């Protein structure tokens, strides 16, 4: 079973990398770009068969390691 974890900086945390990417896009002529926030994406392969149990397990992993809850939020998806 496969799970996906999306980790993003909380809205209140300034994202200098996203800012630089936004500036680069503006330089490339994408004048409609208003903001960019950079995050992380994980694919976790699990030896599990129950989707609910897998989601609980990966959520625990995200909370403990994949994200730092002080500055980041996360979202977990389990693929059928």
């Amino acid at each position: 079973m496969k799970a996906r974890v999306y980790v993003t900086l909380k809205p209140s945390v300034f994202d200098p990398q996203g800012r630089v990417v936004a500036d680069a896009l503006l330089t490339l002529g994408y004048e409609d770009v208003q903001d960019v926030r950079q995050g992380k994406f994980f694919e976790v392969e699990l030896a599990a068969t129950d989707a609910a149990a897998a989601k609980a397990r990966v959520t625990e992993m995200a909370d403990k390691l994949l994200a730092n809850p002080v500055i980041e939020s996360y979202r977990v998806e389990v693929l059928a």
Partner: protein
Amino acid sequence: MKFSVVVFPGSNSDYDAFYAASTVIGEDAALVWHKDTDLQGADAVILPGGFAHGDYLRTGAIARFSPIMSAVQAFADRGGPVLGICNGFQILLESGMLPGAMVRNDRIKFVSRLVPVRVEATDTPFTAACAERQVLHMPVAHGEGNYYADPDTLAGLEANRQVVFRYSDAAGGISPASNVNGSLNNIAGICNRQRNVVGLMPHPERATEAQLGSADGRVILASAVKALASLSR
């Protein structure tokens, strides 16, 4: 007294810290591998600078789960002095032994230069030998030293005088111009509520002899010697 310096895979200031504690300050020092579980009779623990585990995932995120960290936590819980320098500070933040987190420097650049830092509190084991508001010149070398804490945590840090060092100008003035990385409130170092765990981004161990550009960092380790001597008296 004895300083134990923890060595993580990717630490690069471990020997600098060992040299500063042993040769410069003249105290006992030991290097302790991160997979060990014993701090070898430490009176003070140093988590050194570097790039533990390659800074993969987030700075300090993997190192906090190293076996030695349980011993460091227990040592700190007993009131033992723990100093986290640069990457060591990041590990203390990730482990929750200090509040807040580090994000990328505001101007994205890796900052590597000698900077003035003002001592904000002298009642910690690593600033006990400093003068009030003393300005120390120490090098910084980091890409992720931009200190962040949510507003409540930040207010708590200030109210409890847990800010130990701030980026300043040479005269001790604090302003946005003297902020090297965008840290909230110019924070360069903090301590826990019990004041025995201290983390800072500048490198005192790289500023211990005049030929290194500054010997101001000596007072940080000398403070630990003084603090422990006054405890045992």
